[in-house]
């Protein structure tokens, strides 16, 4: 109640940093975020990772709703917002307040894009997520739909999932075709969102290392003023034993 209201439209005041990635399935964003995490950890930063739609609070409900195909565009949207709220409160805010770097695989922009395509009012979704924190860096991995499809079909992911392919929208009986139509529409929405929220677009058809290079350069710039609180645990033990002239026990 005493905190200033959080809002997507102005920078947050916490000591930590929030870095997020967006993009359709098959854009390679999760790979890039993982590589970024490896790099940051190797540099000694305290990093916390959080992923879209992963809170325990509604995971079971979402799963059940998806399975029974009982979700409407609005309940689908609200369940994801609940998940996000819960993660914001438990996973994102505490590390940001503690001065850590938070990496988020998908953020509210995923909802803005998907829900709009499902027919939910874009204005409403933005108001719904008004309590979110504005990221310090937001990367959008832009990829043509055919590239995404070939990556997904060639990879280990197997079949497209019902909701990810937008099968609830009755676009096509064919899973791949439905995915193509649905995700193409999402790409169109992303294009609008990227300029609305000034996200950094990465050409996701480039080689993995090239993209990662670009990402690291951006992050490195953004972290120039950042004073990381280095973790002491893991080191403290050694120091403790050294002080008493003892060797570390097994």
């Amino acid at each position: 109640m005493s905190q200033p209201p959080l809002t997507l439209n102005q920078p947050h005041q916490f000591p930590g940093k929030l870095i997020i990635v967006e993009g359709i399935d098959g854009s390679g964003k999760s790979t890039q975020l993982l590589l970024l995490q490896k790099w940051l950890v190797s540099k000694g930063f305290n990093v916390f990772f959080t992923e879209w739609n992963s809170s325990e609070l509604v995971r079971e409900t979402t799963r059940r709703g998806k399975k029974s195909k009982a979700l409407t565009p609005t309940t689908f949207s609200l369940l994801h917002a609940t998940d996000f709220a819960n993660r914001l409160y438990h996973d994102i805010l505490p590390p940001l307040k503690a001065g850590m770097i938070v990496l988020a695989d998908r953020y509210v922009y995923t909802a803005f894009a998907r829900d709009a395509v499902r027919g939910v009012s874009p204005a409403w979704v933005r108001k719904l997520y008004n309590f979110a924190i504005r990221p310090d860096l937001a990367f959008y991995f832009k990829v043509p739909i055919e590239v995404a499809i070939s990556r997904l079909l060639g990879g280990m992911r197997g079949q497209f999932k019902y909701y990810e392919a937008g099968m609830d929208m009755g676009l096509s009986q064919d899973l791949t075709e439905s995915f193509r139509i649905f995700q193409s529409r999402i790409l169109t929405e992303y294009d609008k969102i990227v300029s609305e929220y000034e996200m950094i677009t990465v050409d996701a058809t480039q080689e993995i290392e090239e993209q990662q290079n670009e990402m690291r350069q951006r992050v490195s710039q953004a972290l120039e003023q950042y004073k990381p609180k280095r973790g002491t645990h893991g080191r403290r033990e050694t120091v403790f034993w050294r002080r008493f002239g003892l060797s570390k026990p097994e």
Partner: protein
Amino acid sequence: MEDARQYFGDGLAYLNLSDLKGRLIAIEGTDGVGRSTHIELLQEWLEVQGYGVVTTGWTRSNLMSKTIEVAKQGNILDRWSLSLLYATDFADRLEHQIIPALRSGFIVLADRYIYTAFARDAVRSGDRKWIRDVFGFAVVPDLVCYLRIDVDTLALRVIETSGMNYWESGMDMKLGADLYDSFKKYQGLLIEEFDKMAEEFKFEVVDARKPPEEIQDILRAQIEPLLKNNGRKPDIPLEQSPSGALPANSSPSS
């Protein structure tokens, strides 16, 4: 207003409201004020007159009722998650129960409506805007009856019946040292919020300290005009029972 059914704010762009010919009546009020008893009596009264009635209750959706129960047991809900759980439950009932029933011409009696969520969120956050934006997709009811009670009477009544529980006492807000203190402060704040909304949204305010029969009569009188103005009023005259007495017109306390 009579024919143009409206969304509260940003509505469901993919749904058409123009053919919802039923009536939507919400009964609001704090915990333990007697809402469900009166809804039962109203349903009986309406059905005897030949109206189809569907009742819908807060947190009772197929999708969410269990989730909310489990979440509340954990006592770790933040303000946003709590409000969004309510909103999800409400959306599920709206799209799967309320709107289809209204489309088929039923009278929908809602035990609590969006105003409950507004009150609960406002006392937790002091912010009235966000929660109203969230519930923008709600259909504006034809009538909101607010069963109003003072917090002292309410406290006695709740102790005598169900007893005070964690959430009804707003224990998550840490307002008081114990259940009783917290209950009184929390419910007091909620009543204040409801009172403000009663003016803003033109609730019909009913004094819930009156005897149940009297309250029921008042509620029926408030609902009656909606039925008469409803072009759907049955053409078939009510059958006279041989004795000339209609059981549904007897005292509701029976």
